[in-house]
């Protein structure tokens, strides 16, 4: 019942994330983060979310890595503080507590891959059944993104525009 390929991919995901966190050299850390994004895209393609996998491979692994690298070329590529003081007591108490609570809540989640989970039975079948009549697009994700929720997508581009303006204003003085 447990899917072996998926376990391997999840392990690779965790290993690359651990590498990105632990490596002292920020340049290799960023490159490991890019490979983490690619493994994430692979996991999503495996679980049937192909559109999300495309976007993660292009935007997450491509664009985010390029942005991180551009920043590092302008700044210091080393995490200079080698010795880290012990984290505060609150951190040491709160983080394991949150972790245990999250894992305890797992038994109330619907089972993995359950076709009758609440997320999959409410409005989602209606979208799947009606989208071809409504928009004549075979890809349901596209028809929801571009037809049913097109205003949402438009305002998303406004957010990207605003962040582009913010970057331009922040970096303007020094060229």
């Amino acid at each position, binding site marked *: 019942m447990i899917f072996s390929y*998926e376990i391997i991919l*999840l392990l690779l995901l*965790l290993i690359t*994330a*651990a590498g*990105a*966190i632990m490596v002292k050299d*920020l340049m290799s*850390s960023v490159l490991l983060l890019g490979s*983490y994004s690619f493994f*994430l895209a692979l996991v*999503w393609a495996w*679980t*049937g*979310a*192909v559109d*999300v996998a495309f*976007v*993660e491979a292009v*935007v997450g692994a491509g664009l*985010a890595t390029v*942005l*991180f690298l551009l*920043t*590092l070329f302008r700044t*210091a590529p080393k*995490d*200079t503080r080698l010795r880290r003081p012990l984290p505060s007591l609150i951190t040491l108490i709160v*983080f394991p507590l*949150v*972790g245990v609570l999250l*894992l*305890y809540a*797992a*038994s109330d*989640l619907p*089972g*993995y891959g*359950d*076709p009758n*989970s609440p*997320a*999959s039975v409410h409005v989602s079948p209606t979208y*799947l*059944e009606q*989208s071809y009549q409504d928009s004549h697009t*075979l*890809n*349901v*994700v596209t028809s*929801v*993104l571009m037809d049913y929720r097109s205003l*949402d997508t438009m305002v998303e581009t406004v957010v*990207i525009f605003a*962040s*582009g303006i*913010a*970057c331009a204003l*922040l*970096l303007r003085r020094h060229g």
Partner: protein
Amino acid sequence: MVDAILAVLQRPSFLTFVILFLWGFYIMVTRYNLVKKLIGMYLVQTSVIFFLVSISVKKGATVPVLLSTTDPVIAASYANPLPHVLTLTAIVVGVATTGVGLALCAAIYQKYGSLDEQEILERLE
């Protein structure tokens, strides 16, 4: 207790989500380097998106692209498309906010000559 552990082991993607989320958050809180903090933030963002996408999985279902235009659609044979749509937006917005954070890092470095939080605080005084 045993039931809770078994429930976690049956949901490996949820366990991965919890590890990535908490580890990234911990990095955001404890590390001094600003780029390292942003790496932690990126891990938190992607882990939440990962959790949302893992909700949409249906066993034995294919990708949400219709196979036929004439047959009636059986919803159980396609993955749930709605979490995919919402996370597409979230990925792009997340990378945009990370870009603003990195631009802030570059501006801070040009003003204070360091990315280390403690050194910046010393130079501010």
